[in-house]
């Protein structure tokens, strides 16, 4: 069972503080959508508004075409998995999972059968009589998931369900949840602040910023074509260069600046840009180091000196001082601190925006 979820210009406020400033989003039946953003961006508020724990001050939420904005949480056909798991410590695993069915007045035997089915699906067989306090973190997380799935909801809401798990268990559970959601064909909305988690699990990612949607799209699009400096930085392109540039046909002429050499990038300019200042974002892993004197006509070259080095594994990560700025660059070779180098950024690794779009 799954359903289309339409969020239509929804606004939500805590007291006088507007947290959601008009959010619209269509989620197809069976789709897995991640709401991604840093703390305070409104992602949890949006999830809680969808769930009905907060009421929208404006806008509509529709499930399968029906407006449910005024319905109480349990009439919305949604089930939520909480960050803290929110299991009831005075009930056994089976009682936790079966509680929603007891509320629906199912007969005792039918509940027991359904609980067994859910526990088997989540590889919790035989743990039904266990006290939830005796379970590991990963098991609790699965009981919480089972409790939500037992009532056969049309939409599953996940509020950072993995953030309390150990790093290694988390990776397994990511794949389990994703596979389960695909098998059941359930619609899922997943709140997270972990970029990789959203990338790996979601069909589509919604980036929220200050109560508004900054970008929506499949993981590859968000990662490779962020539509603003904010999204670029949030998706890991944290190195920033300001460039003087002008469009020239399909290429962009970059003038020599305080940190960069002149070059011509074979790359489309931002829409409507002709001449002026550009802000370029790039990832440390998309750049590389070249000799200090090296020239490359097709790439952006930033000559500087290595000031710090570390080995996070597989590659070396260097901090390179270029003028007043520092850039993080990954390189396969070990180099000395103080060495004169040039940061080489290929044209397609640069995300370019008119300077007016940048906040700082």
């Amino acid at each position, binding site marked *: 069972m799954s359903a289309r979820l339409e969020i239509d210009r929804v606004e939500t406020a805590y007291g006088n503080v507007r947290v959601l400033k008009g959010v619209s989003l269509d989620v197809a039946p069976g789709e897995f959508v991640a709401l991604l953003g840093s703390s305070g961006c409104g992602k949890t508020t949006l999830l809680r508004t969808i*769930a009905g*724990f907060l009421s929208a001050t404006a806008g509509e939420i529709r499930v399968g075409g029906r407006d449910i904005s005024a319905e*109480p*949480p*349990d*009439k919305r056909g*949604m*089930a*939520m998995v*909480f*960050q*803290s798991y*929110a*299991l*009831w*410590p*005075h009930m056994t695993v089976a009682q936790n999972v079966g*509680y*929603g069915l007891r*509320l*629906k007045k199912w007969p005792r035997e039918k509940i027991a059968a359904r609980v067994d089915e859910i526990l088997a699906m989540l590889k919790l067989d035989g743990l039904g009589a266990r*006290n939830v*306090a005796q379970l590991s973190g990963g098991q609790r997380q699965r009981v919480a998931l089972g*409790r939500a799935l037992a*009532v056969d909801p049309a939409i599953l809401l996940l509020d950072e369900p993995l953030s309390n798990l150990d790093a290694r268990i988390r990776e397994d559970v990511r794949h389990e949840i994703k596979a389960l959601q695909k098998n059941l064909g359930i619609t899922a909305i997943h709140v997270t602040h972990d970029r990789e988690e959203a990338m790996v699990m979601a069909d589509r990612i919604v980036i929220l910023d200050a109560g508004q949607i900054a970008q929506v799209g499949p993981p590859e699009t968000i990662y490779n074509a962020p539509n603003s400096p904010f999204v670029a930085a949030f998706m890991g392109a944290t190195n920033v260069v300001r460039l003087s540039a002008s469009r020239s046909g399909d290429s962009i002429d970059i003038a020599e600046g305080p940190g960069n050499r002149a070059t011509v990038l074979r790359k489309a300019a931002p829409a409507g840009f002709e001449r002026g200042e550009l802000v370029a974002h790039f990832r440390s892993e998309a750049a590389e180091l070249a000799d200090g004197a090296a020239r490359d006509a097709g790439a952006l070259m930033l000559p500087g000196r290595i000031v710090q080095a570390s080995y996070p594994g597989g590659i070396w990560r260097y901090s390179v001082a270029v003028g007043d700025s520092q850039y993080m660059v990954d390189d396969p070779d070990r180099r000395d601190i103080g060495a004169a180098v040039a940061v080489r950024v290929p044209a397609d690794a640069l995300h370019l925006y008119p300077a007016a779009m940048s906040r700082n």
Partner: protein
Amino acid sequence: MGPSRNVSILLIVPALLVVAVLFVYPLGFSLVGAFQDKQSAWTLANFGRAWELYRLDTAFTLVIIFVSCLLIALFSIAIGGYLTLGESRVAKAILGFVYRWPLFIPFIVAAQCMRTFLARNGTMNMTLVYFGIIDLESAQSFLDWRGIVLTFVWKQTPFVALMVAGAMGGLDRSTIEAARNLGASRLRILVEILVPQVSRTLAVGLVLSFVTMMSVLSVPLMLSGQSPSMLTVNMAWRINSVGDYGTANALGFVSYLMTGFAAWFYLRHGLREKGAQ
């Protein structure tokens, strides 16, 4: 580390002895007194006399205190539940402000207030008559066991409600939201989700209230002069008017057994909770 730890235990022993003597010895001595006559010979006569004179009062005391505990539990769960689950902020603020005031009223003041309030021509009846709900002839005095229970409940509910509301407020709110999300009504959430999670706090509050009610002399003395009376009144009578310490000690022993049972319950419950973790 072995020897130095033993030395530190030896160093602490005098302090522990002082605590033990100061806290335990007076009690033990009085309990022994219950089994001795005026010549310090061993006897059960004190208990015989206590049984003969006060067996009705013992039952009366127990009934009053159990009824009070039950009502206190109900009211404090209701108050804590409303403060935790209620949706009207204004109502919660008013309730939160009002309910704890009796905590700051001494028992004797409370007893005195209730005397004025509950007497046959007291404020309560007069108000009821004024509104035509009863007529003056059928008005009766509540200055008996009902008055005692009312005063106890009035005075102790805030104490237990304070503990219960605090414990409920300290629970992970998402355990409440998870139940709401699945369709549980507020009453079910209170009974099935909240109360089981704060049951230990509730039990502690009730045990402490139990002991407090066993302690209070002023309320039964002032509210219910007639027989049957509570054990506290009897003990005060035996000592202050009759000078019969033996029987008073025996009654004290009985009181102590009752509270000891409550204490045992408290400890057992506490240990079981720890064992489950």
